């Protein structure tokens, strides 16, 4: 019996090639799309999931209150880890950590490598597996360092033993390799290439031992029996007790949430990447649904062709259940073929998709889970797509259809129209969203930043760059490739160093305001293209500015009416404002400019900024800078980044949403058009006799095209009417996430509507014209 169904399904497919193509192709695109999204979702969900203690490992960030609002920070004070471990019974392990990039050199081979200074507990918290050495003895030596297999290979080559070797770090210190661990999984929130004892870093830094500085990333492990809520409450209380300050609360952040739910607002967890994951899962399901709708439409449109068969089979003794079963198995077979085609598509498209989303997803067809999932999608699609046609087709009465009566459409007709409207509604919503996401992105990117991010190169300060700053600057400018050089202790786009408890003239409740501190060299403002609104800039001689500060406009506003010049700020030491700088954006590109205070001191700078000459080609500029850096700072590899690249990287998730919504809008429209195309073909076929008669009676080709297109355009029109409020609602919500946002403009809806109509017209008119120019004799003869 089943064989019989399969046979007939294949013959039906072969006989109706166009129809089969539309169905399979549409469904294949849908499945491909959904598979791409699900692969991405799987990748997102896999973050940190390979660590063993999923229910016990937590990160300890802090909420801190400023000006009535809670902000969330990653760091905790140094002694807090040990305090939690000893004073809270549920916490069995704790480790302070500090991330650092170190320069490892072996002979001529030097690599910059990110890793962490950690306490010994770190090894067991993350169940790190040793390939060489062992966990117990790894940190016995204060000069120890444990590196990953990958790092070991980079340094010493494949299969070479690394343990016991002395590693030169930053060209100054020696570390003893005490172990080699397996590489961490690909997707981890806190990647490391090495770990070394925490004391090696904290050493004589007195300030790391008190509760005054928040600087460490702290990880803890709970005992398996511990109650999360109980321990979390104790952690919150403990930091308050230790600091004596109710404005700082540490809390537990589960390893399961590190990647997906790491966004906090006013002390509450409010999602994060999980929102994108959810959004795209929904989109994947919608696209699958559109593809299934296609299938339903085309199947029921063809009902007249199948009606006879249904009649005969019923007369031969087939019950309705068997027919339903037959039609569903046909749909399943189609879906199965479609999923095979989609696997082909996936092979071709996955590399492109990876480029687009900057990931390294693999199809992994050898993984049973992927196979089962794909089969699952296929099965669900087949059943959803086949169910309605099956019930509809099997409901025909044999007497009626065998007599050659036309199938009375009734409900099916309405449902079919409804489905077309549904498809187009979704497509139009996609179009509108795509335009708005794009606009919002452009809007933010074109925002006045308060500095000039173009032609700006950033170097990490290392080695002797600060000591030799003046010579380096001179040599750089002499090359002609660089017009200005400035130092800063913090990245220009980053939040960085900040604090509160300041007082100043003209302000009230000033203690609560969070102020950002920047230690810069005198020409940093010029280099970054920041504008001095009032007063003077810094002197080249920093000693002359030891009590002067520059502030931004938003800070000046906090100082009340009148010029801020000459006003005093008390931050333990008292400073005088000598100049006001135009507000500039950092950290949150969607938010407001926070108040900033600049000091003329570059002794602890972390970044060197170079403004380059736009008239010289990029590669030329870089090679000239490299030559200078090699000369003055030869021990370190020349590494640089462009500020505008870093700026663009800040919009990664928005850009991803933008790119993907473009892609999926396109595909949704394509699938919908395939459906419409098929539907138009069958309508034309159904009405061929009517068209023949009309032509004989003198109707013109254009009149008939109009007649055939009109019905479809009405449907698209209806779809536009439904789509506009839906799109408006969705996008207004989305834009609500951004303080700096565009207003939704009416003409976008007009454009989306016109696009939809034009696309539908093109699709339908092809069939309509074909039907209209056919010779009426052919269509009339068939009866």
């Amino acid at each position: 019996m089943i064989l019989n169904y399969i046979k007939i399904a294949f013959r039906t497919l072969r006989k109706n090639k166009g129809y089969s193509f539309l169905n399979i192709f549409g469904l294949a695109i849908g499945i491909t799309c959904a598979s791409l999204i699900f692969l991405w979702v799987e990748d997102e969900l896999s973050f940190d999931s390979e660590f063993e203690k999923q229910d016990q490992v937590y990160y300890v960030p802090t909420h801190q209150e400023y000006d009535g609002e809670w902000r969330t920070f990653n760091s905790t004070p140094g002694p807090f880890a040990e305090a939690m471990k000893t004073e809270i019974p549920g916490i069995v392990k704790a480790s302070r950590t500090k991330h650092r990039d170190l320069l490892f050199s072996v002979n001529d081979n030097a690599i910059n490598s990110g890793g962490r200074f950690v306490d010994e507990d770190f090894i067991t918290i993350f169940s790190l597996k040793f390939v060489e050495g062992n966990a117990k003895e790894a940190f016995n030596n204060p000069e120890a360092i444990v590196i990953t297999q990958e790092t070991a290979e980079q340094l010493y080559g494949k299969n070479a033993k690394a343990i016991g070797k002395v590693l030169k770090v930053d060209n100054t210190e020696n570390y003893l390799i005490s172990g080699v661990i397996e590489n961490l999984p690909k997707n981890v929130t806190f990647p490391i290439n090495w770990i070394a004892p925490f004391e090696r870093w904290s050493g004589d830094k007195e300030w790391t031992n008190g509760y005054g500085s928040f600087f460490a990333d702290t990880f803890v492990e709970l005992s398996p029996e511990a109650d999360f809520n109980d321990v979390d409450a104790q952690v919150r209380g403990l930091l308050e007790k230790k600091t004596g300050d109710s404005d700082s609360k540490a809390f537990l952040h589960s390893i399961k949430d590190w990647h997906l739910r790491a966004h906090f607002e006013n002390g509450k967890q409010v999602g994060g990447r999980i929102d994108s994951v959810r959004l795209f899962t929904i989109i994947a399901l919608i696209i699958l649904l559109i593809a299934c709708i296609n299938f339903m439409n085309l199947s029921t449109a063809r009902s007249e062709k199948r009606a006879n068969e249904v009649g005969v089979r019923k007369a031969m003794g087939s019950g309705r259940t068997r027919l339903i079963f037959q039609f569903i198995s046909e749909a399943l077979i189609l879906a199965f073929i479609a999923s095979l085609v989609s696997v082909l598509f996936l092979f071709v498209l996955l590399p492109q998709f990876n480029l687009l989303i900057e990931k390294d997803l693999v199809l992994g067809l050898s993984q049973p889970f992927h196979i089962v999932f794909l089969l699952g999608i296929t099965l669900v699609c087949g059943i959803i797509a086949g169910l309605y046609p099956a019930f509809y087709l099997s409901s025909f009465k044999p007497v009626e259809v065998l007599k050659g009566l036309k199938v009375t459409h009734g409900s099916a007709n309405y449902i079919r129209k409804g489905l077309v409207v549904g498809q187009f509604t979704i497509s139009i919503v996609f179009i509108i969203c795509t335009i708005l996401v794009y606009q919002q992105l452009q809007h933010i990117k074109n925002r006045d930043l308060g500095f000039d991010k173009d032609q700006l190169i950033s170097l990490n300060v290392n080695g002797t760059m600060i000591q030799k700053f003046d010579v380096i600057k001179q040599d750089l400018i002499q090359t002609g490739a660089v017009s200005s050089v400035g130092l800063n202790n913090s990245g220009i786009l980053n939040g960085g160093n900040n604090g509160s408890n300041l007082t100043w003239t003209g302000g009230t409740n000033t203690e609560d305001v969070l102020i950002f501190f920047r230690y810069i060299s005198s020409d940093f403002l010029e280099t970054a293209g920041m504008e001095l609104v009032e007063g003077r800039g810094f002197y080249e001689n920093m000693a002359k500015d030891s009590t002067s500060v520059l502030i931004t406009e938003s800070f000046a506003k906090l100082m009340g009416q009148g010029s801020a010049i000459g006003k005093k700020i008390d931050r333990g030491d008292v400073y005088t404002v000598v100049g006001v700088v135009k507000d500039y954006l950092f950290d949150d590109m969607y938010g407001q400019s926070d108040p900033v205070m600049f000091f003329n001191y570059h002794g602890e700078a972390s970044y060197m900024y170079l403004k380059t000459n736009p008239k010289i080609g990029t590669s030329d500029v870089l090679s000239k800078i490299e030559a200078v850096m090699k000369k003055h700072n030869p021990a370190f590899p020349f590494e640089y980044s462009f500020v505008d690249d870093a700026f663009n990287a800040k919009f990664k998730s928005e850009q991803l949403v933008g790119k993907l919504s473009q892609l999926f809008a396109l595909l949704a429209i394509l699938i919908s058009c395939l459906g419409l195309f098929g539907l138009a073909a069958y309508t034309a076929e159904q009405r061929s006799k009517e068209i023949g008669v009309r032509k004989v009676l003198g109707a013109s080709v254009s009149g008939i095209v109009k007649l055939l297109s009109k019905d479809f355009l009405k449907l698209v029109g209806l779809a536009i009417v439904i789509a506009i409020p839906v799109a408006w609602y969705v996008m207004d919500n989305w834009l609500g996430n951004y303080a700096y946002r565009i207003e939704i403009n009416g003409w976008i809806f007009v454009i989306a509507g016109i696009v939809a109509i034009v696309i539908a017209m093109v699709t339908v008119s092809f069939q309509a014209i074909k039907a209209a120019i056919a010779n009426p004799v052919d269509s009339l003869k068939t009866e």
Partner: protein
Amino acid sequence: MQNILVSLNEATRTVNSGSNKVTLLDNINFNVEEGEFISLMGPSGSGKSTLLNCIGMLDNFTGGGYTFLGEPVHSMKEKNRSKLYKEYIGFVFQAYHLIDELTVYENIETPLLYKNVKSSERKAMVADMLDRFNIVGKKDLFPIQLSGGQQQLVGIARALIGQPKLILADEPTGNLNSKQSEEIMELFAQLNKEGVTIIQATHSESNAAYGSRIINLLDGKIV
């Protein structure tokens, strides 16, 4: 005394067409005995096809009694009724109604699938039937590759494969030329001799003459 296969007692069929009640079949009374070959005659619209469909249980009488092999069909549930006709009745259509996507062999086999006959048995039965109708060489062809007469031959083979007690043929030669018609009617006569009960609806006097009894219909009544 022959077995009574079909017994109609004041069987009536009315339909609502708009606000009018139209009587398609009006108080039909007759019995069909096993082994009979009945020809229903009458002009277009006289109710021949409706009567055949109702006897074949594809359609229902709306009034009166209908017993098939002693079982009261009019009071049966749809499921039992379908079981009954699957078991005992074969249909032959004017337009053949073969399934285009199936070969000759598969078309003939279809009713057996619905009766859940085992594969090996099916093979033997279909082979027998192909042999009997001399169409073994055509078993892998699709209906579209056959002439009308050949298609109807397949249609009859399909109707017979389930070994029904009753064959209902609605204008079986309506789409055929006279030579083909004659062959088909000869075949019916032959089958009837072998014991199959046949009811055919026809326009043609000469076709009707093959039957053992003629029932004339006009406007839904037996005349």
